[in-house]
């Protein structure tokens, strides 16, 4: 991958967005290979630490994919995820990682085409934004 190709770390809910990614695949919808998918049981399982770690390791963007409001397999995990993303956004943007690099999106299991759109869109925007300020840093 060339130097200006962004890396997206995606934490996807098993029940919706991960299944949508699967559907996109079986439907032969192509999307940028910039995304590295981590399958979670719920967007509510995404500990803020995971997001922080992804950025510290040089991710250009982090995507969290969860179920639409009202559809969470565990009733309210997606609402918890939403609060955590709001919190992380407030913290990270003070140090130069803006909300354009941390996305939370609702993508239902049937929305393979939306998954394709989200990844395509995010990759494009991150390319315009340029590499993360943390890329290639030398200390942990």
């Amino acid at each position, binding site marked *: 991958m060339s130097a200006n190709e962004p890396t997206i770390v995606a934490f996807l809910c098993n029940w919706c967005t991960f299944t949508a990614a699967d559907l996109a695949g079986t439907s032969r919808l192509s999307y940028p290979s910039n995304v590295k998918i981590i399958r979670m049981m719920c967007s509510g399982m995404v500990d*803020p*630490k995971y997001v*922080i*770690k992804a950025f*510290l390791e040089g991710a250009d963007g982090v995507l969290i994919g969860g179920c*639409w*409001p*009202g559809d969470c397999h565990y009733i*309210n995990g997606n*609402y*918890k995820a*939403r*609060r*955590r*993303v*709001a*919190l*992380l*956004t*407030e*913290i990270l943007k*003070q*140090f*130069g*990682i803006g909300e354009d690099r941390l996305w*939370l*999106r*609702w993508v239902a299991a049937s929305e393979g085409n939306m998954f394709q759109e989200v990844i395509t869109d995010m990759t494009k925007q991150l390319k315009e934004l340029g590499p993360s*300020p*943390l890329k290639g*840093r*030398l*200390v*942990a």
Partner: protein
Amino acid sequence: MAEFTKLCYQKGELNQALSEFFGALIEQKVFDAVLLPAKQPTRGVMQTLISRPDKLGAIDPWAPVVPQNAAKLVSALTASPSGRPAAAVLRSCEVRALIELTKLKQATQDDVVLFGIDCPGRFENHDFLAFSDQGGTSEDFLSGDFKGFEVAGACKLCQHPVAGNVDVRLCMIGAENAVYVEWLTERGNAVREKLGMQTEAGPKNRDSEVEAIKKQRTEERDRRFAEFREATRDFQSLQAHLAGCVNCYNCRVACPVCYCKECVFVTDTFRHDGSQYMGWADKRGALKMPVDSLFYHLTRLAHISTLCVGCGQCTSACPNDIQLAPLFCAVAEKTQARFDYRAGRSPDEAQPLATFHDDELVEVTGQVK
């Protein structure tokens, strides 16, 4: 309408007047014990749980030092309650932290009546020891004679010189050679009735003097936050700010609202294999050790910035003089505002990460079905 009782004292006898007041509370069995700052037999002042009136001679509630945010001590005393009545004399930052710990079910307030004291600030611990070694007293401090020392950085920015959410308040702002005891709640007034104390109006200029202190500190805070945000606007400068960090984790031990019973940073999650370090070194070419300093501070910001009361104990605990309090306070201002929350403002508001609603924060995803 709040009511006050005036306790007059002669110069040099502030602590004596207070010890008589608290002595009456113990003698008349209003409380089995009082938790408040007292001079230790050899040196220094620490929060002390006093159950016998003859031990009250050493008390010194306005000693300009807070060795530990006493919310943690009230938590120790009440998390598993004794069922015995006690009073706790606390500063605003301690009360506000206690409110957060109570919400987290790490403290209870059923057995404890809270006495808040007006707070002109505190010194750093080493400065306080030097100040008292030079003969400095609480009354010197209250009269503005700091003997060349300065109050801690966090205190200069603190918007809460007066403790809220307490049952009784010991007021010195606006008072001269007197402490005004302000009886605020039903529980507070029950204490007053047991003592049979008369009430009168409060100090005349109190409200305007409190406002003047707040105004001055607000200006100082806004200036410091702007300066600080400018100085840490990217990760490089943040890293430079935290350069002295050696992962001792004293800041989270000192933090009254760092609520985890066991910090993840001392668990096996962060006890890596040698091959892991070698791998990181291979990937980067050079690996700063110990690792994860920045990760630790950012995680702590995620965990507790919504609960941060700005007490400054993190800065005080740092062995390498990292100014952690402005970092945490500046971030906390933003994160708390996002959820329309203020740590310690009210016992009835749910903590931001302990609640959620289906129809909120729509702007996070920007998606509407």
